[in-house]
């Protein structure tokens, strides 16, 4: 019995110690403020650079220690985790918020605008945002009320990766197709000449590339807070993709990881995916690989949603907010931005990084694949983000629709129209 009581006491003591320990999580032993930074960068998508930047920051900072936390399943996954953590009352300090969640985030979570934190604690940085960023880039991070929710951090756009070896083998122009109509023709020729798949259109858990495809043809995802993608142009654009998958069988309908993997090992000739995949593709492809600008529709201008994310401050108290800006200022320095671009392929949001000697000047000269993304930045538009509580549900409906259309269980016209109605119903509730 005595033995038993001893054991109970010991366990109670351990629990007590564990409880004490977790209370002290806000500060480290040497008095630094400890904050969490949430990101979505897997090892193949810049995760190593995140790790490097955080380590370097921690080494030089005397007041702040940052812990980086990876969130799987991209920005949607992060938003879900944040929802769970916010419900439990422990939000991280700095989070990456994907553009498509801009309004959802600002409606449902508590955050502080970076400029507010700067003005409160760092008067010397007061004009930092104004000086270093182009106004239209800063605008990407404003919500529908015109409030500056965060600061653009990762900027990307979709590009067309091409396998020049296969294009040459099929007797096609090795500079790749310029229009979507050509993409379809090229794919047909590739299938006939080489037996390989011509094209892969990225299918992650978001509708970003779909927006690029539809809006470049003149459709609008959202007009005045209403879903309007099922216009004539929208249907025409989606039909091209559906035809390639279902009728011509020249395009691959498969998960994102598997699709990119198939491009890298040479089973697919062209892949339409984000520039953020550049270093993964460049490092692993064993053939003559290139990235060309996003195809346009015959006679129309491209409209490419800005992909990537902004950094927002969700720290609950002033001490952590201060620490958050200190960390963010480090991430936005020319050197850190340059590292970020090198590691991920994101286009730098600051206007002075591309030409700076300590930035990307020599790097861009050596890496032609990046040029495509930098050159097409004039076609960049905000990522469509459905307003209100129904945002996530609307996004999910469009994802379900993609499986239905590309799986052949519903026609493009019927699918787009019915989902548009459904989303508008949701938005009205």
């Amino acid at each position, binding site marked *: 019995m005595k033995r038993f009581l001893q054991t109970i006491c010991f366990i109670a003591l351990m629990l007590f110690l564990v409880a004490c320990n977790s209370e002290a999580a806000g500060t480290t032993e040497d008095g630094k403020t400890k904050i969490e930074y949430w990101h979505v960068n897997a090892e193949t998508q810049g995760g190593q650079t995140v790790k490097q930047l955080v380590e370097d920051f921690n080494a030089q900072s005397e007041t702040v220690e940052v812990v980086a936390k990876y969130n799987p*399943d991209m920005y*949607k996954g992060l938003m*879900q985790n944040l*929802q*769970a953590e*916010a*419900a439990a009352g422990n939000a991280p300090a700095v989070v990456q918020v994907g553009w498509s969640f801009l309004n959802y985030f600002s409606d*449902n979570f508590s955050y502080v605008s970076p400029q507010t934190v700067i003005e409160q604690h760092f008067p010397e940085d007061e004009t930092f945002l104004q000086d270093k960023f182009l106004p239209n880039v800063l605008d990407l991070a404003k919500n529908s009320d015109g409030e500056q929710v965060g600061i653009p951090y990762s900027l990307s756009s979709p590009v067309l990766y091409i396998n020049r070896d296969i294009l040459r083998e099929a007797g096609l122009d090795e500079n790749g197709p310029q229009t979507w109509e050509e993409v379809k023709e090229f794919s047909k020729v590739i299938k006939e000449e080489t037996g390989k*798949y011509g094209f892969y259109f990225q299918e992650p*858990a978001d509708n970003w590339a779909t927006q690029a495809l539809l809006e470049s043809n003149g459709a609008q995802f959202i007009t005045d807070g209403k879903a309007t993608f099922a216009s004539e142009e929208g249907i025409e654009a989606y039909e091209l993709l559906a035809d390639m998958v279902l009728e011509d069988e020249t395009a*691959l*309908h*498969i*998960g994102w*990881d*598997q699709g990119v*993997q*198939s491009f890298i*090992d*040479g*089973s*697919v000739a062209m892949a339409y995916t984000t520039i953020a995949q550049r270093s993964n593709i460049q490092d692993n492809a064993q053939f003559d690989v290139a990235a060309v600008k996003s195809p346009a529709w015959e006679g129309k201008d491209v409209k490419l949603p800005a992909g990537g994310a902004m950094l927002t401050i969700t720290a609950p108290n002033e001490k952590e907010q201060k620490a958050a800006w200190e960390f963010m200022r480090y991430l936005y320095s020319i050197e850190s931005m340059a590292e970020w671009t090198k590691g991920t392929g994101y286009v730098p949001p600051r206007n002075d990084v591309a030409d700076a000697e300590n930035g990307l000047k020599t790097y861009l000269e050596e890496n032609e694949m990046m040029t495509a993304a930098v050159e097409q930045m004039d076609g960049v538009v905000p990522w469509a983000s459905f307003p209100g*509580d129904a945002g*996530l*549900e609307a996004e*999910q409906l469009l*994802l*379900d629709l993609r*499986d*239905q259309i*590309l*799986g052949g*269980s519903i026609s493009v016209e019927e699918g787009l129209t019915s989902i548009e109605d459904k989303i508008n119903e949701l938005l009205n509730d």
Partner: protein
Amino acid sequence: MSALAAVRKTLHLNRENAIGYGLLIPSIIIFAVFTFWPFLYTVYLSFFDWNMISPEKEFVGIRNYMEVLGDPRTYQIFGNTFLYIVILLAINCVVPYIFAFVIDIVLKRWNGFYKSALFLPAFISLVVGSILFTWILNPVSGPLAIVFGWIGLEIPNWTKSEGWVILVLSLITSWKVFGYNFILLYASINGISREIIESARLDNVPLWRIFFQIILPMSSATGIYVFILTIVQSLQYVFTPVKVVTQGGPDYASSNLIYHAYHEAFVVYRTGHSATLSIITMALFLILLFLYFKFVDRGIYYEN
């Protein structure tokens, strides 16, 4: 005081079994905190409309139940769940039974090697297994597709086609579950008296009759345990590959009841629907459990 006395009386609490009850308390507390309380809370949530973050929950009565039961997708997911159970019973209950029988009774050499080789995958995390298989089974450029290509076969595009996706996810799950079930059944068959089997062999009883008329009845206690376990696991373990590989897609064709409850709660944040689904799932399994005790349990041979 009289209430306490009444409790003592109904529990037959006395000096001798006081320690027994005392020892039960820790597990009762754990059960209460991690099982009973969440269950009651789930019942509570199933009557509300809530997005998990807003401070207010809206009471909607039985509207969640009406919506869930009126949604054709719910029945599609019932169907999927049933299909998972059937496939996993075949792979993880029937096949290991036969393997255990063959390795213990029929084979004379390499038994130790087979035992460890078949159990080995049970050590590896299902997440790792799922990622590995997604790569190996890539229908266009995975190693298996290349090998199949040599002999002119094609792998179906399983992540995007109905039916196939359930079969392949079941296979991935089996990788983890098979070994454990196999070891359980092997131990049980191994415990059967050798004399019975040897005398049957002397009488030239064919192997299939040894299996069906000696092994199966004599190991039925473990057999039925593995059977039940497989049903429960086929609901729960399938969650991991579904989450990692398909997220329920294409268009819910690989979702099962457990994953769909997760999807409703943590992807689209309709906790009411999610809670309702969980309650319906539980009701279904209570019925199954009842049927089991009523019809199956009495036919089982328990050694002691």
